[in-house]
């Protein structure tokens, strides 16, 4: 342990390490979405009975209704063959739509001969193995639909992004 015997009170003492700060000009902040812009969607879920000892699965159905300023068909499905090489196909739930999916995927049925054969429905009906899976599934769907609604809200407002001339700009007199 060192002793503190040197009196340097009468000296200027430089603190050896400077610190660096960074001042920045923030990007334009997007305006917060309106508290209630009228866009809404109602999610209702139904769950089959489950008994730990005697039941091997749980059926969950989530239905979207009463949509305003957005489609209620927010669940993306893909047509898949029921078995390899078979002609008969069935829709399989894949994900909650993004805003782009809402624009691109048709409602109710896929476009004929489209690959992949996406389409949208207003419900999702799945079989799950346990209550934990059910709770997780419902939570994920609710969060995804909330995120979709928030994203659509943000897309209502356009902010200045930039501009450039293609070709020479006009000469100002």
């Amino acid at each position, binding site marked *: 342990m060192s002793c*503190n015997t040197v009196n340097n009170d009468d000296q200027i*003492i430089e603190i050896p*390490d400077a*610190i660096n*700060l*960074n001042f*920045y000009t923030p990007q334009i902040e997007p305006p917060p979405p309106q508290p209630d812009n009228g866009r809404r969607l109602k999610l209702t879920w139904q769950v089959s009975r489950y008994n730990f000892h005697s039941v091997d699965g749980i059926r969950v159905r989530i239905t979207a209704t009463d949509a305003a300023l957005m489609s209620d068909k927010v669940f993306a499905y893909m047509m898949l063959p029921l078995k390899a090489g078979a002609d008969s196909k069935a829709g399989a739930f894949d994900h909650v739509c993004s805003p782009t999916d809402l624009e691109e995927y048709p409602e109710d049925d896929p476009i004929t001969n489209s690959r992949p054969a996406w389409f949208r429905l207003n419900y999702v009906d799945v079989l799950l193995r346990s209550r934990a899976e059910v709770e997780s599934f419902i939570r994920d769907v609710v969060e995804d639909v909330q995120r979709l609604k928030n994203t659509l809200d943000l897309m209502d407002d356009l902010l200045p992004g930039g501009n450039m001339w293609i070709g020479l700009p006009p000469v100002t007199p």
Partner: protein
Amino acid sequence: MSYVSPENSKLLYGTRPHIVADGVQQGVVKIRLRDDNEQPVAGRQVELTADREDVTIVQPGLTDADGAALAYVTSAVSGPVSISGRVVPVATP
């Protein structure tokens, strides 16, 4: 009586180092003075300087019982700035 050890004394970030350059938001610099035994040195004045003229520094008061004092830094100009510190000599009568 304890005397300031330059090696043990430091300038520290009191807030995150990225600050909006609007002349209002403040970066906080924490001064920590220690002696050779890592004990706090109270009652000393530290003077901070910036390497840019557009930076405003509200100089810290005397270090407290923990050897600490705070300074506040603002600027309306974007870009990095380096803050240095030195301990002012004790005035002799």
